[in-house]
């Protein structure tokens, strides 16, 4: 970091999980730090700070993006969705629910990045094959699970999505 950065601050307004937040930040402040430490939405995790692991993935205007590769100021006026915006413990989103059912997590550190990534994926591909499911998560690192149950969770999440869309037909989950 150069000296020029230090001390200069700007106001930035970012909408996160439907709420507009304005903060005064240094231009160099990463979006991941902004979300985690300024907004204290600590569900978004940082596993590498260099764009490889995907733990910091959030949805920016619906698209999965690595928040460690963006500055907070470049998210001005954008709509960000973090893992906290995808469900609560009492009302989990389809991907979150699927991760629980399929044992798709162990330590849970990588999980928020997978949940956001998969949410966007099944939006685009509501009925993926297992190959497509594996492909979809192949940009995120997990050191615990060996990915098998995460692949399963992708398929199950798509299924839950479909079940929830047609509640009358929704039978017993498999």
């Amino acid at each position: 970091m150069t000296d020029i950065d230090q001390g200069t601050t700007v106001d930035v307004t970012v909408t996160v999980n439907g709420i507009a937040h304005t903060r005064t930040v240094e231009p160099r402040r990463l979006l991941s730090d902004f979300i985690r430490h300024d907004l204290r939405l600590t569900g978004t995790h940082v596993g590498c700070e260099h764009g490889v692991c995907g733990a910091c993935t959030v949805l920016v205007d619906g698209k999965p993006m690595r928040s460690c590769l963006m500055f907070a100021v470049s998210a001005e006026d954008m709509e960000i969705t973090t893992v906290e915006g995808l469900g609560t413990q009492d009302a989990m989103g389809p991907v979150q629910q699927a991760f629980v059912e399929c044992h798709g997590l162990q330590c849970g550190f990588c999980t928020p990045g997978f949940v956001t990534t998969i949410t966007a994926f099944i939006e685009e591909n509501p009925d993926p094959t297992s190959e497509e499911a594996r492909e979809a998560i192949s940009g995120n690192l997990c050191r615990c699970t060996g990915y098998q149950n995460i692949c399963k969770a992708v398929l199950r999440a798509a299924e839950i999505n479909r079940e929830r869309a047609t509640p009358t037909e929704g039978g017993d989950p498999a």
Partner: protein
Amino acid sequence: MTTRQFGQPVLRREDPRLVTGNGRYLDDLGHTAYEAAFVRSPHAHARITDIDVEGALDVEGVVAIFTHEDLEGPAADRLPLLIPHPSIEAGRTGHALAKDDVNHVGEAIAMVVATNRYVAEDAAQRIVVSYEFLPPVVGIENARDGANLVHDDAPGNVAAHLLQEVGDVESALAAAPHTLTLDLDIERSACTPMEGRGVLAQWDSDEQRLRLHSSTQTSTGVRAAVAAKLQLPLSQVECIAPDVGGGFGVKIMHPWPEEVLVPWAARRLDHDVKWTEDRREHFTASAHERGQVQQVTVGFDDDGRLLGLDVRFWHDNGAYLPYGVIVPIITATQLLGPYKPQNYRVEFWSLYTNTAIVTPYRGAGRPQGCFAMERTMDAIAAELGLDRAEVRSRNFIQPEEMPFDQGLMFQDGRPLKYDSGDFPASLAKLKALVGWDDFAAYREEAESQGRKVGLGIGCYVEGTGVGPYEGGHVHVETSGRVNVATGLTTQGQGHQTILAQIVADELGVSIDDVHVTTGDTRRMPYAVGTFASRGAVMSGNAVALAARAVRAKALRIAADALEVAEEDLQIEDGTISVKGAPHASIALSTVAVMSNPLRYAFDESAKAATQFAGTFDPDKPPVADDEEPGLEGKDFYSPTQATFANGMHAAIVETDPVTAEIKILRYCVIHDCGTVVNPMIVEGQVHGGVAQGVGGALYERMAYDETGQLLNASFMDFLMPYASEIPHIETDHLETPSPLNPLGIKGAGEAGTIPVTAVIASAIEDAEGFPIRSMPISPHELWDLRRAHAHALETVSPTPTEESA
């Protein structure tokens, strides 16, 4: 009736919190804390001649800068050598901040504390350290030749040297009809959990108390070490492991320099201080494992039966030896796997190099041992033209020989005595699962399509659940809530679920009422830690024993109240009732009220326990002489020795005839970890373990150059596998309960990882037709090997196999 939880694939109780972003990992805590950054050595071996912090002091937001000179008392001394062992000849450890010299890239030299991490890093960049370079020692070859020394007072770079022998190997080899010698090599890798290390220290100057959060596998260990370093009474220090984003061994090491420095600075500055490791720091300043050079000489008869096994290996322990020689001891002892060597001699040298320290990584020396043994088994089969599974089976310890004493001393200082296992049954299951006997036909078909495929196999035995002990505390609140505490920590193994399953069954309550806390010294100050696949064995049994104590107490109180004999009572769904007379019952929550005679009625339920409520025997004290108030109980589980889990893996690989790309087509696992508390969780542990094993076999290595620079210290360059690299894993289980503990559990955590390198080497060898002696292996290396062997075939015949006698 309460359904039995033990053995059920109960969904994890920690998950709703974690999947919704409500986990609390280290860096999620302490948002008002100062943050620390470190100046770390860019050189592998140098003397520090000057540290100039001038330019950093006036960076706005800098609170303090510390170097070794600022440290005082034990904090300035060397870090402890955690596990002393008689084989250690020169046990050297580092300082929290480097004093006079640095011995690996990444060693901490100065600590900057600032209002935030950005500022701390700005300042760290302005600190100028001057060095006088020393020759770096990198790699086992250079360490072994001893021309340059890492530590002047460790001649030959030898940290430790150990020889163990059972029987008479010399004579056995001399008399053996066949002998082979194999030279083997395994490179360094590392745990690389998705969350690195991290420490938050909160100093309360009014109470002179330190609260420490660390992303650790042992909160009691960190607490004791920090109390000693900071000269604080143990009672004034508490340590909590919050949610931990993976460990795999690296977080059992303690105290890390940062675990000493962060609390030290918090007390000195009278302000909360936090440090969160970044990925580059994790690569260079935490720990690695695996690097070994091995030489195996084996003698065997015409049937492939072992007569004598002589193993020598050189273990790269990095710059310092804080964790002692646990890893090479495990290699030396667990190498034997399910086999009877007849005569066995193992000798190792643990060597210093100017690289990151080496401490256990999932498997902890076993993957190397398994590699040595399994390569040897394949070599014997090749030499005699026998089926590889058959050679293994001829050397198996038989079920009726259990318990089987290998005659060696294990990592816990106790005999290496296998408690259970049925190796022939495991092998039969594995052969069925992978289709061992049909593989020849499959290969033929593949060959007809121009494809190269190979089948590999690997067997292991894993000593799990080593002592000394773990404890359990179970407390039933008057609401019926059951609090369970154990001291070991959790990094994703699902302890909150499996321990709740065990307690729910033992106590006869709904699992929804059971709440488990791990790794918090406020709740359970006596504990060892999470390593050696010991969580379920140690804490599982400890909480079961504690729950049994609570159950007994509850029945005593209820028997009194209901005026029946204890034997006539049962507990189901949190209600104690008379067997056969369900109307005579009392809720466990009521028993909890009655267990604590009260003076004050703080709520509705408490009224029943106050002194004017109900009748009592005026001749008896409110709390009987041999009782304590409260419905709670505590117990410890301390085994005489480890339990021994085992497993066998097989894989089918395909190697591209042109590009030498290696693809795993199938991966099969047979796994015996005794009785299973939660099959879903065990399966998950196996998957994760195999994935780490695949990383170690095909992708991951620590690429140090000759000057000791780590060239691939990022996830961009260190090739940790994505989903695209990990095969679908097929599993089958065998349950041979351990006779050693009340629940019959053997550990499961590391199992998946142990044989993978051996299995993949075996499969590639089978596909290619030449020996694989060095792992990991990349397509590039395989391609080179092909060329070398083709060349050798052209110039000399016969094929280049092992030198045989």
